[in-house]
């Protein structure tokens, strides 16, 4: 008698998110009050945290994280009363972006989202 089997498939929704929008482990002070933060600095720290998450040694991430930050795109007003700023360090064949959602107090309202991928373009 055979028993019908069903392939085990790991539900990959979380991995899917990670593939394009890896959530940075950077410790933020999202909900803390205080002076507005420099978005560029937040972007850099976000990159360092992401690179650490995916196994980069400290010297490499300190040395190279800035290369991935890139330039800030024009900020867009958001529903938190602040602006959303995306730093795009992408180059042909490589996606490198970090998006920071700033609140009204000039500080991130959530962990910045880092996108780091090898992309196939036409």
């Amino acid at each position, binding site marked *: 008698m055979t028993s019908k089997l069903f392939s*085990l498939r790991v539900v*990959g929704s979380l991995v*899917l998110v990670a593939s*394009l929008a890896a959530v940075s482990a950077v410790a933020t002070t999202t909900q803390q009050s205080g002076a507005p933060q420099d978005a560029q600095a937040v972007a850099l720290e976000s990159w360092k945290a992401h690179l650490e998450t995916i*196994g*980069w040694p400290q010297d490499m991430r300190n040395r190279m994280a800035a290369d991935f930050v890139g330039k800030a795109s024009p900020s867009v007003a958001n529903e938190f009363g602040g602006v959303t700023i995306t730093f795009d360090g992408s180059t042909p064949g490589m996606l490198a972006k970090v998006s920071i959602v700033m609140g009204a107090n000039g500080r991130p309202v959530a962990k910045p989202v880092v996108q*780091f991928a*090898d992309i196939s373009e*036409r």
Partner: protein
Amino acid sequence: MTNFSRIGLGLTSVIAALSFSQTADAQVTIVRNFAGGSAPTATGTGNLQTVFNAACDWWEAALVTSPYTLTLTYQWGSMGGGTLAAHSLVSQGGTPHRETAGSITFDNDGSTNWFIDSTPCDPSEYTTFTTNTTNYGGGLLIDENVWTGATGPAAGQFDLFRTALHEVGHALGLSSANTAFQAERTDNDVDVTSPRPFPGSSLPLSSTSAHMAVGSMLMCGGCATQNQRRYPSEGDLLANAQISQMSGINFLTACPGTGGGGSPLTTTFANNNGGAVGGAVYFALEGVAGGGGATITDIDLNCAGFGGLAGTIDVYMQNGCSFDHLGVWGGPIATGSATTAAAGSPTNFVLSSPIEIGEGCCVSIAIVAGGFGHAYTTGTSPFALTYATTHLELTAGSATNAPFAGSAFNPRVVNANFHYTVGGTCPPSATVETIGTGCVANFESVYEIMDTASFDLSGQEFTATNSASGYSIAATPTAGIIAPGAIGTPTTLVMPDDGQVPAGTLGIVVGSNGWIALGGGNSNGFVPSAGTMLNNPSTAIYAWTDLQPNNSGTVTYEENAATGRVRVTFDDVHGWNTTDDHDIQFDYNVNNGNWQLRFGAVGFANPEDWLVGYSPGGANSDPGSTDLTLAALFAIETQAADTIPLSLEAVGTPVLGAPFMLTTNGIEPTAIFHVGIVGLTQVSLPLSFVFTQADPTCFLNASLDLVMGPDIIFGGPGSHTWEGVDLTTGGAVGFDLYFTSATLDLTVLSNSTRTANGIKATTGIQ
């Protein structure tokens, strides 16, 4: 013949000598997890899973390395315009440093017009195949491996298979997130070093990303175009092998397992069915003509369940393609063990003994699962029943929930990758052959038996000279019998038909049918018989045929008591119921045992055969008929005593799965002990080299690696059957073992020790 019962002493198997040798040929294993997503509108009738599996299989076969497992999650997702797919590294590490997990997303937002091939390994939608070579400093290497000229559903579309190959290629080294890549890219190229092929090559890298800067390579950045299917070139393979420190590459121009390319032979991992724990799958493997054969070193299997089980496999083999699950399978020819992966992912079992499939050979294979159940595929459309590489072809078979029993479910496709090296010979069948001789046979008796028309000894005188070592018999021409009276006064004997009469004073008895003996009691039979002669109670000289001295010719006897000489003359005695004269003359010297036998004229119409020779009284061993005319050329020697050689014969052949038995024949009545000898080496060693008292004519035909017994035997002459090696639990095929045997009497190691011929036994399947 007597078959001795065995009073067994310990029997030790030499199965240890057949123990499996360990080999390893592990490569890349890509664990594939499909995370879903909505398939976009596309041409072709395939799906992402089939295409992605084909891409992973390709890379697994194309990179040579120590065991390395990469887990990839893949899915459909929106990528935005201009991007076909993306790869993200999730984790990395290890030594050598490699990506260990990654995620790949294929665009489904409608901006990419995909061709999703249902048969990605069949490039029939493309018309033109091209390769190109360039020297990058380490010799010409292939930097293009492409099909162009898309037709049908592939026309005008981006090939999903090409993109999948490209993205999986990122996960194997060429990734911006991979620190090994970042370390390699500092001079903007990949510097190829040994042991990889083409050392000294510098493969240009994109300055902006983890891509090759060579437009013809699969891993080129921004090079995806419609209407083509691009495979990994040697340049692509080398780049990843160098970055990820893999030892070699295996360039392919077609999918592994689908009629082209090399190892592994892959069926499918699309299990939609499965068997019970401990069940078996059956299938046939054939060495493809012209492929040179294959030697399978490890097998990836699809194991049912969620993984984490301690799994074992036993691999069995039959000759022929019939995969008859109820047939004779013998014992396992290889085993393996592994912790199972989840169903749908390969579990690698390194075989304890490689399995060779020679070119043109077809064998049936059974894989019995231990601790897990097989996950396999029902062999109905769209799943094929045959799968092939350039070297090896698999025909799907059946499955059972208990090995080699019950009803088989079929067709069932084993889910497997067969990793192999090119080259192999046909699995051997079990064989036996006789080697060497034990003891040289020695005989006291000598005779020739022939039909009456073939009698060729007329005009011959045989002179037998006795010594301590036996008789030396020579033949010379003679004019016929010597006239009676030369030795003593002849006495005419009154002979009956088929009888015997005593003659003279020296104990001689004369038989009517042409013999003289040193006593009475021998057979009066008119039909000559070697068996009778060899067991007559009195020593005799024979010119035995059916004669009629009671009513024809004369039989005279004369003797000289002083010298011990006697002479018996048959003069013109007819053959029975014929008118043919026979002149036969026997001389014997009772003092020294010398004798002569002369033949004059004889008839050729006697109703019975002739038996001419000599045999001592009592039981004698049969030397077989000897052409006595040879005595005219050289002396025929008899021996002072019979030496009976043992003969050893195999009972069947050494088939894995059953005990291999042998029978020792020709055991002497005086033998008390029997020993079986099992050796790993063939020798031809005088037994006297083993112990000095041995008969110098006896030889040992197997090295003394294992002595079985002694078994106590008595009551012979007879035979003794004994177990040479127990192959019930399997072993290696093609393994040579050498067997011989010996018997001893109470003197143990002495000149009465007898040895047998050897048997060379080669283990095998049926």
